């Protein structure tokens, strides 16, 4: 029952992701693009859920939609006049790009269908949170810690970039 439904669910999710991605790319209005991103993120969360990765699906929703999306929207809305910017997206010669994209699309598609993938046959629907927690503190401890160092440094770096901006504008006010 579930197995037969799966392709249908997958197709719908993929369609959502694809359409929103296209919208992000081709829309000339940043706010529209930002909202379209919402659809894309949701679709990915759906994919995770479908594959039984419940924790990741929720994290995807919380972090990407709840955090990153909102941040994006704030940034777009708070930056004055950004909606008026006519994006001069100098299109790459369509005559070359389109065939290239099509060739890539079809050859990768062919590849995906023809390859003998190493795949787990059955998807167990069970809570994964505990297992992920376990792995993060055992096998994947090092990547986990490194990510935290990376995030810390990036945080400091972004503060640096932003702070100088503030300092400058304050000087201007003075």
């Amino acid at each position, binding site marked *: 029952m579930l197995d037969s439904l799966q392709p249908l669910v997958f197709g719908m999710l993929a369609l959502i992701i694809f359409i929103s991605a296209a919208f992000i790319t081709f829309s000339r209005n940043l706010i529209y693009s930002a909202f379209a991103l919402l659809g894309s993120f949701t679709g990915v969360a759906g994919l995770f859920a479908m594959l039984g990765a419940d924790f990741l699906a929720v994290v995807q929703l919380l972090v990407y939609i709840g955090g990153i999306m909102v941040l994006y929207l704030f940034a777009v809305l708070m930056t004055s006049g950004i909606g008026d910017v006519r994006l001069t*997206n*100098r299109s*790459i010669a369509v005559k*070359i*790009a389109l065939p*290239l994209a099509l*060739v*890539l699309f079809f*050859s990768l598609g062919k590849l995906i269908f023809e390859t003998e993938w190493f795949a787990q046959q059955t998807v167990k629907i069970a809570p994964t949170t505990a297992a992920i927690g376990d792995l993060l503190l055992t096998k994947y401890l090092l990547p986990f810690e490194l990510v935290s160092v990376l995030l810390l440094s990036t945080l400091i770096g972004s503060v640096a970039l932003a702070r100088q901006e503030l300092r400058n504008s304050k000087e201007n006010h003075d």
Partner: protein
Amino acid sequence: MTLAWIILLPLLGAIINGYHAMSCTLRKQKVITGMVNFVGVGLPFIAFLIALSQGIPFILGAEEPLRETLFSWITVGNLHIEAGLCLDRLSTLMILIITGVGTLIHLYSIGYMKCDPGYAKYFAYLNLFLTSMLILVLADNLVLMFLGWEGVGLCSYLLIGFWFEDKAKAQAGKKAFIVNRIGDVGFLLAIFGLGVLLLPGISEGASIFNFEYIESKMSLIAPSTIFWMSSPIILTLLLFVGATGKSAQIPLYVWLPDAMAGPTPVSALIHAATMVTAGVYMIARLDFLFDAAPATLNVIAIIGASTALFASLIAIVQNDIKKVLAYSTVSQLGYMFLAMGVGAYAYGVFHLMTHAFFKACLFLGSGSVIHAMSGEQDIRKMGGLKKALPITSMTFLIATITIAGLPPFAAFFSKDHILWKTYSHGHTVLWVMGLLAAFGTAFYMFRLYFLTFTGKSRVSEEAKAHLHESPFNMTFALVVLAVLSAVAGFLGLPEVLGGHDWIKHWLNLGAGSAKAHSAHDHAMELILMGVSVAVAACAILLAFLLYRNGLEGPERRARAMQPIHNLLTNKFYVDEIYDAIIVRPIRSLSQSVFFRVVDQKLINEVFVNGSGKVLSWLGSCVSRIQNGFVNRYAFYFLLAVSVFLGIWVIN
């Protein structure tokens, strides 16, 4: 590290003075003479002291060579070359000559080069020369020796062309460099040949070109062949080609007389005492290899004897004080090679040492004369300088007697040993040639002495006003060298005169010395000794009769023998012959083919202009790609990935 310091100290001097010279030239400042002197003379002197401290045990009889492996130099697969130094009796003798005579000549140069604008540069070059020469001598392997070999060639070039604003002098430098290069090819080929022979069976970690290693592998080298010829013969012939270049033997001697374009102390140090003897040293160092190649030894002996005679004949008619000495050097080097050729390596090295003393003394004396004469080098415009230059003339006389081979001065012993060995080895013809050369030597040297220092003065009034004895630092060097050239011969006092022939036993070179010629014909040796002294005395007498009163008489007689005189004045037309059969064909070939076609058409039009056009076309293409738009960049990234994928998947 002690041995390394002997090399490093002059190098340090070269770096400091070189940097000082460069920064002074660029900023147009004056050279700080005091510092240059301190560094340029002080460091070689310290090197001399170290050399002495290291050498004394060997002089006192130590036999085991002192080895210092500095570092592993080149490691490529199983080819392994270590930069190592080795001090044994032979190299002790050499480094003492190099640093000792070198220091004296540096000291002398302070006076000689006093007013030269390139003062610091001069000392930098001279120190660099010492470094290279010491590397050459101390090297424990052929490749490091070659490094020094090339280094001395470079310094020689730089110093011959020291006054490069004068076109002739710059040309002389180039000539020396190019002729030496011909010899170097021989040396290099010999190294390659040895590598080809030894590399296949090399044991792990052995330094392949190490002299000791080569010697231990002689059993492997001796029976082998290169191109169907016995490899020791091929290798030694190639090495000898290198030696003829560096040590100015027939046919590559032509650069040495021209090398006199350099400052006189340079002629003394490089073109008389040290560098030109590198070939002799190399043969002595590789005595085991040359012993295995009797055919080569014969070639060396013949070339040596011919050079000795040939050059001494040319020297007879030269009128430039330095040219006479230059040909004399060529001739004396011929003696050394004659010694090498008859297997009397120790005597060749002995003559090398005595020659270093007396020839350096002669050159420095001539430098003192030139200095006093404000640059005049023509002996026809000298005469009667004895009064003005008492010390110079005295030392010059001592050195002249020495080179003429009168007992008990040094060259008598060293030269006589060589002649005796030549005779006792059965090379009677070569012995006669050597004897004739000895006659010539005594004659032209005394001709030089009489014309310069005695008789009526032919000095121009202008020059007469400046005539002065040289300052102390110059005369000091002269006196030391004169004393050395007078007494150094006793190191090799022959057994027949009641001596011990110390130098031969001490150096202990070659297979011949091990055998100890027991069949010594003492009577014959004494007779020959008498003959050569008599020959020298005759020559001196002849020179005295002819030249004591200056030039008028001899010039008349020279006119009577016009053809021979012309032949000699023109140095047997060797330069002209080389010009006709080598230089001109090459030049016309390069003019007609290489310049007109290869250079103008192929390189200039096709490569240079063509590549320029292609480049600018390519540049415009690529700069269209590199246009600063990052979305384009991303596109090209993807394109490149796709292209690679495409090519690969198709394959």
